[in-house]
């Protein structure tokens, strides 16, 4: 079964280092999956392309067509690679706005590879103090290695001890491990009676199982 990987990059310029990191991550994950003999496909989405849609969704409560397509692919994907620039010590506002309009259940149980970019390596912990709690809240399953790329990682001043590619490969291996042997994330249809009736078969189950007064 082909594993589907959604890649979401929140970089604002074109080309952006955030997109470059996303591309390197997906290449590495592909290589790891290929080595394990697992078929894979990926789609890369840049939030810049749907930035107006995200704002409109915030204002109207529904996703215009292009954004709906992104969100549908993400919700049905077996894994997510999420990469954001770090602005003012955290994920970008656009990245958060996108997650704010994504269906709350969309990435429940989905393995996620976290990536971030910024001007200097001093922001590298933002993956762990900002991004990771957000994905935990959404009940996604971020792998333990997040990949942070500072501007210097793209040039001669790069980290020689733990070079970017090494960190990418480690994270990609972790994500590939999650996808190996798993049969993919089982998505529950919220409109299936067994889902919203809490396993019951009749509305009477809702009548008799009312929670106690809050």
């Amino acid at each position, binding site marked *: 079964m082909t594993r589907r990987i959604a890649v979401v990059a929140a970089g604002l310029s074109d080309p952006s280092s955030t997109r470059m990191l996303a591309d390197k991550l997906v290449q590495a994950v592909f290589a790891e999956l290929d080595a394990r003999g697992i078929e894979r496909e990926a789609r890369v989405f840049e939030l810049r392309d749907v930035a107006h849609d995200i704002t409109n969704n915030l204002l*109207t409560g529904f996703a215009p067509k292009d954004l709906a397509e992104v969100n549908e692919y993400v919700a049905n994907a077996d894994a997510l690679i999420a990469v954001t620039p770090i602005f003012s010590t955290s994920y970008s506002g656009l990245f958060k706005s996108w997650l704010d309009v994504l269906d709350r259940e969309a990435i429940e149980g989905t393995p996620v590879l976290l990536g971030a970019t910024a001007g200097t390596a001093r922001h590298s912990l933002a993956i762990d103090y900002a991004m990771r709690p957000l994905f935990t809240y959404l009940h996604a399953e971020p792998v333990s290695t997040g990949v942070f790329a500072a501007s210097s990682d793209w040039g001669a001043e790069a980290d020689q001890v733990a070079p970017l590619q090494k960190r990418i490969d480690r994270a990609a291996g972790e994500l590939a491990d999650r996808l190996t042997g798993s049969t993919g994330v089982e998505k529950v249809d919220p409109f299936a*009676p067994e889902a*919203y009736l809490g396993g019951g078969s009749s*509305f009477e189950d809702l009548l008799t199982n009312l929670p106690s007064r809050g």
Partner: protein
Amino acid sequence: MNDNNTTWQGMQFGLMSVSDITRNPITGETPSEAQRIRDAVTIAKHAEEAGLDVFAIGEHHNPPFFSSSPTTLLAAIAAQTERLLVSTSTTLITTNDPVKIAEDYAMLQHVSEGRMDLMMGRGNTGPVYPWFGKDIRQGLPLAIENYQLLHRLWREDVVDFEGKFRTALNGFTSTPRPLDDVAPFVWHGSIRTPEIAEQAAYYGDGFFANNIFWPKEHYQRLINLYRQRYAHYGHGAPEQAIVGLGGQAFMAKKSQDAIDQFRPYFNAAPVYGNGPSMEDFTEMTPLTVGSPQQVIDRYAAMRDHFGDYQRQLFLVDHAGLPLKMVLEQIDFLGQDVVPVLRRELQKNRPSNVPDAPTHAALVKAKYGDKEPRQPRPNANRGDNVTGGSPYQDTESSFGSAANK
């Protein structure tokens, strides 16, 4: 108007109002509450004159809305009309006491002589819950339990009730009993909650999707679910479920005039202003801004997506539109749009699809040709608490309280 059109009972057409008091973006003036309430009565009366069937009003408990007391307004409208059916869009089943809903709407049913029904909803204003002593996280359980009680209060003379959210009732009789002892018809309105579609299906009630502000696909899956579950609970085939839809339109004889006239109101509207362009919004949602023919085309096609349905309501009095423009919109609906929709939607409608719900039809279904029950209370001896029925036509000397 074609008489054949108005005699067709299959569908009801009308208006639904949010009751917003919105600044007119062109004049800069905001109507007073007094003005807007007077206008609501004028709008409803005009709807009847124009040949529409229904006027529904929302319920809100905060400015800039005026409709905190829908039954008072609807009673006034019913008193000034002959034929118009008054309804709600919606009545808050979460924060209102179901006992008070039972009493208020039974009263409305009497004074309107059956020209009413109502729609249950959970509301969209968070603080309303704490203002009424409720917890918004319990919104759905409240809707489920409260409606269960409301349903019983209209069908049982004496109710014993113990629930999670409300003071227990022992030997309680909701008065007046419903007109002809037939409970008002109930719609359940929801835009995203499958449990509410399930609830409507379980009771065999109507289901209403407001069908405005969002793409119609959002509502399609709820209505499909409601139809399937309606059949599951044995009320009939899926196509026999009772479906209502909202809609939104602004018209002028020439399409471009409609666009030019409506744009300033659209751009400043609280719901979608500063969001998508009017062109994008009209493409993505059922809002149609154009000629009456464009509105006819858009809404005649709704049944292709939702199945044959029973009620179509339009939102026309919002976003600061002045009364004169609202009345013009009602004229377009009454003269140009609804007569054609009635004609078109009658065509190829399967014979097993039920007509729109009316009090007369519910009475007929319950009693056939027999006289409806007219409850007359006994002299006040507290019978319903001490054991006997409070009504003369009920023989039992043991009320439900006595069985405890």
